[in-house]
């Protein structure tokens, strides 16, 4: 019974965070651009979330006649489903975790790699050349950055000697892994930005070149799924960064562990939005070249050095 409550609670909290991010992102972006942002609907403009959701619900849900219908409908479901599955393994506080798998980290990587299908299938099924270009870019970007994402957390796995995320958090009792694994953290975060295809790495959707890329043909709640999926992805990557490098729920005792976890997560969500506000989008080949030529050697060296030091300390 308690398990069901945890599942429902995680679902409720994260779907609400994802919806609330509509408001948070607009307000923060506005603040960083010397504007005020949405502040009319309701207190502090918070009802913009409600208004936006209602708008998306009541828009015409149009499927283009030239689209591949089944795949077109399937694609937005995959993005939300895969991200929500990824949230299942994150420990929010001692005992509050949906599935305490002993391969939890691998499960997260698996789910984030399945998320690539939403872009690829969405772009292909739209049967539109811009969407297809977006899908091709998305596929190569996500495959490339999955590699670094997987490799960058292996240092953490070496130090904590476990794939279980609860064990990883508990291994950070004395010192957070961001101190011992700074390179791993940076590469994980960069890969996370690319994995959620957020700005500055939003080349699958690249408004200025590809209109909206893979979701150009989507409307109504199907577009809403991509929209929510992106915000859920941000929350997931932020939560994973906190879990693996910033001690998860650990923190001084004057606040409960869950509060610490969400405070840190929100700090990273804000960092995501700051990245969007400040950095320009690289070119497609620059992104891939940067990944394969700089990040991959760097992450391998990081892995080597971590392994060597771990062995040296043990001997």
């Amino acid at each position, binding site marked *: 019974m308690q398990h069901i409550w945890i599942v429902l609670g995680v679902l409720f909290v994260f779907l609400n965070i994802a919806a609330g991010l509509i408001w948070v992102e607009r307000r923060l972006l506005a603040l*960083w651009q*010397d504007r005020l942002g949405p502040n009319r609907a309701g207190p502090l403009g918070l009802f913009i979330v409600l208004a936006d959701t209602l708008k998306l619900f009541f828009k015409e849900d149009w499927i283009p006649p030239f689209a591949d219908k089944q795949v077109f409908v399937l694609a937005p479901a995959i993005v939300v489903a895969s991200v929500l599955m990824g949230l299942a393994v994150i420990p929010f506080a001692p005992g509050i975790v949906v599935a305490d798998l002993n391969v939890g980290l691998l499960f997260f990587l698996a789910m984030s790699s399945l998320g690539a299908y939403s872009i690829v299938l969405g772009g292909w099924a739209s049967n539109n050349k811009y969407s297809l270009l977006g899908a091709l870019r998305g596929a190569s970007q996500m495959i490339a950055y999955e590699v670094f994402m997987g490799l960058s957390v292996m240092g953490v796995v070496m130090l904590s000697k476990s794939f279980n995320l609860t064990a990883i958090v508990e291994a950070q009792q004395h010192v957070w892994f961001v101190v011992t694994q700074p390179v791993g953290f940076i590469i994980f975060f960069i890969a996370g930005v690319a994995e959620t295809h957020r700005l500055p790495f939003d080349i699958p959707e690249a408004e200025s070149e590809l209109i909206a890329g893979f979701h150009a043909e989507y409307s109504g709640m199907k577009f809403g799924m991509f929209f929510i999926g992106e915000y859920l992805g941000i929350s997931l990557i932020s939560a994973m960064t906190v879990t693996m490098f910033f001690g998860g729920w650990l923190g001084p005792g004057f606040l409960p562990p869950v509060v610490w976890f969400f405070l840190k997560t929100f700090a990273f969500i804000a960092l995501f939005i700051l990245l969007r506000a*400040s*950095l320009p989008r690289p070119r497609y080949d620059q992104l891939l070249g940067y990944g394969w030529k700089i990040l991959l050697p760097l992450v391998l060296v990081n892995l080597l050095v971590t392994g060597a030091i771990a062995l040296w300390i043990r001997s």
Partner: protein
Amino acid sequence: MISHLRTMWLVFIHIFHKKVTIEYPEERAPLAARWRGRIVLTKDPDGGERCVGCYLCAAACPVDCIALQATEDEDGRRYPAFFRINFSRCIFCGYCEEACPTYAIQLIPDFEMGEYKRQDLVYEKEDLLIDSQGKYPGYNFYNVAGMDAGVKAKGKGSNEEEPVDIKSLLP
């Protein structure tokens, strides 16, 4: 890398800068006196209509949103029988104001003319005519015109010569 971090920091400290947003209904942006907004028809200092129904504004209008019909009263003074501006077409270019020989048609700094029905954007003469002289106080076209339209007799205007007596042979 350093430059990226610097960029992010510089953007971040914008959170403490003064915001440029003007919260419109409560706070209004100052509009210049020559701001081109709603079109009005102005009146003479004596309260007569300035418009003489010359159709120049309708001819100058690039989107053809002005329609009028000229007529005359018993004094021979021309005025529009109807004057209609379709503000759903108007682009507020101000060409009508430039074309107007009598300073009758003027654009004023007012833009709050939102309507729910498109038909309500078609302004008739009653809506356009205002009880004001607009940007040119004291100007009356018939004071400087050469004709008698009930404002002044022929030849009685300032800087105006008496009409030539065609019956006389004197120079």
